[in-house]
């Protein structure tokens, strides 16, 4: 059944996943070329000094990308389930309901993780050719909350989509907006030094929220 669920999700989302992966991979040459261009204009030593002195993060354009990816993936995965009432059928499959939802979410999270890991490791490997380990570590640490925001945005979008009542969807959306804004308030690379474990805990806690909507859906809550 696991294979069948993953295959169903793959058929539904394959083009979107290819698009997300393409955008993430396309950002890599852009960021690397932009860095090389800055090196040519300012000189490597000067740019290193500026990065150290002013805490400049030259990959900050990536900040909202994981969040948008998570949001779009959640919408594309679960809006069809709700609009075509497929979720009702899905939950009637001869398979534990919780596990069905878990596997659907795992597919989404796994897809995001593959995109993030592939693009992230490639980007940082390329950057490490022209930047010292200390800058790479700093930027990697600074980008962790962005990726966590991507995963959390996906889970919260799933929660909002499955919710059967529009009034509650609005409340869920406001709650999600406020919660996600906590992930993206940093202006310096070290601002989230102490908060990253808290953000991770929030992301893990959010994993159970979609089940709240599933409970309500199963109870037949409607407008």
């Amino acid at each position, binding site marked *: 059944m696991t294979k069948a669920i993953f295959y169903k999700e793959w058929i539904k989302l394959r083009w979107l996943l290819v698009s997300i992966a393409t955008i993430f991979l396309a950002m890599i040459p852009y960021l690397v070329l932009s860095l090389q261009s800055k090196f040519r204009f300012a*000189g*490597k*030593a*000067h*740019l*290193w*000094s500026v*990065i*150290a*002195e002013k*805490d400049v993060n030259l990959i900050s354009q990536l900040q909202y990308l994981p969040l948008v990816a998570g949001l779009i993936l959640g919408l594309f995965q679960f809006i069809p389930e709700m609009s075509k009432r497929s979720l009702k059928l899905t939950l009637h499959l001869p398979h*534990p*309901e*919780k596990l069905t939802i878990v596997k659907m979410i795992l597919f989404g999270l796994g897809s995001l993780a593959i995109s993030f890991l592939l693009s992230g490791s490639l980007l940082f490997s390329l950057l490490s*050719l*022209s*930047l*010292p*380990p*200390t*800058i790479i570590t*700093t930027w990697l640490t600074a980008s962790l909350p962005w990726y966590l925001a991507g995963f959390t945005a996906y889970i919260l979008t799933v929660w909002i989509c499955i919710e059967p009542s529009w009034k509650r969807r609005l*409340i869920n959306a406001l*709650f999600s907006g*406020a*919660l996600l804004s*906590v992930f993206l*308030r*940093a202006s*310096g*690379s*070290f*601002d*989230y*030094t*102490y*908060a990253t474990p*808290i953000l991770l805990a929030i992301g893990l*806690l959010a994993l*159970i*929220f979609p*089940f*709240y909507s*599933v*409970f*309500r859906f*199963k*109870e*037949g*809550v409607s407008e």
Partner: protein
Amino acid sequence: MITKKNIQAILIVLTTALLYWILPWAIKLMTNEALDYPFTYYSSINNQFIQTVFDGKEMKRVDLEGREYNQDEYDSIVPMFNYRQLMQDGRLPDTIKGVAINPKQIQLNQFFFRCTPRNYNSCSVNLYPMYESMSGRVSLESPDDLFSIDHRIRFYEAETNKLKQDKSRLFQTAMEKRGFQFPVQWIAGNLSARKPYDEGWFMLDADGQLFQVKMVNGKPFVKNTKAGEKIDIVWMKTIETANHRLYGFVFDRQQNVYFLSDVNYELVKLPIDSFDLKKDRMLIMANLFYWNVTVTRPHQRDLYILDNNDLNRADEHTEFHEPNQWEKIQPWIFPCYIELKSYHSTYIFPRFIGWSAKAVLTNGLAVILMIGLLWWRKKQRFSLIQLAYIMLTGVIGAIAVWCFKEKQQETKNIIQLK
């Protein structure tokens, strides 16, 4: 156990926390005002504090006895702060307090030093330039490498992004030879090349000893300042002064402030009351006669006037902070509130502040009234646990409970998920 009630409880608690952050933030945004302390400088002519106050219409310059001065009078009685204006007007006196003065001498003795809790409660990229301290040039030249330091000191060449083995080893050996114990605790200095001169870096080693490390004629210069033997150093902020009188200000665990003199690294204690690095901010405006030391604490501002020669306290003045709109209303509305960002730190994390018993009382009354009304109109019913939660968290808790409250018809068919 993932049950509907458990998830609902988590959602209510998280919503309460978010509201305890967002609502106070919004109210503060609507009511925030500038800090009300006026700019104050000590007159070396009549030995009085002179304040520049904006009364809503115009700037007024007054002393603490209420005497008002016009702009020209102000320039004359605060000559150390306005010497360039006095020079332009041809009014710079020849002598003050019997001391013959000239612009060069004023400039040599003048410096400004600012220290905020954000300077202390922050972190920077572990990458620093090691300037040539004796280049013989007027302006400093940026090196082609930068170093990082933790358990070792490593120099990286920017052009090739390669570790400079020889230079790294040279500095590592020199530091170890001088008794530097790795790993370094912190490093203080000025990264900028736009400084009048370079004194390298001050580093606190694993044993709490303060070392000066710089590069002189391409070779490492490492010296133990011995300051760590006299005091328990917490932090240091460096400064470059025109007269090279000091390296920087050193703060110890007992909340004392010292300056590190350029004469044998002598530590000179500032005669001010305790200084809390985590909360207090300091501004020093030094001139030929006095150091104007302003320490702004959470609820008051202390001004200390120190004699420039012997650093004895010559005068002092304390002003108390008038609570702003937010500080007046918060204790009555919120039993506490959450701040993610702080004026005292660059780090973002939830801080529970502003604890107030008054708000528990007012919230309790408001909640009783609200629940009574809803009960009477039979619109909402709350369980005992929910009531206790609302009593504890106030109106914000009530909003959170209302947001995730299930209607009767919504829960009549309880379905267990398999």
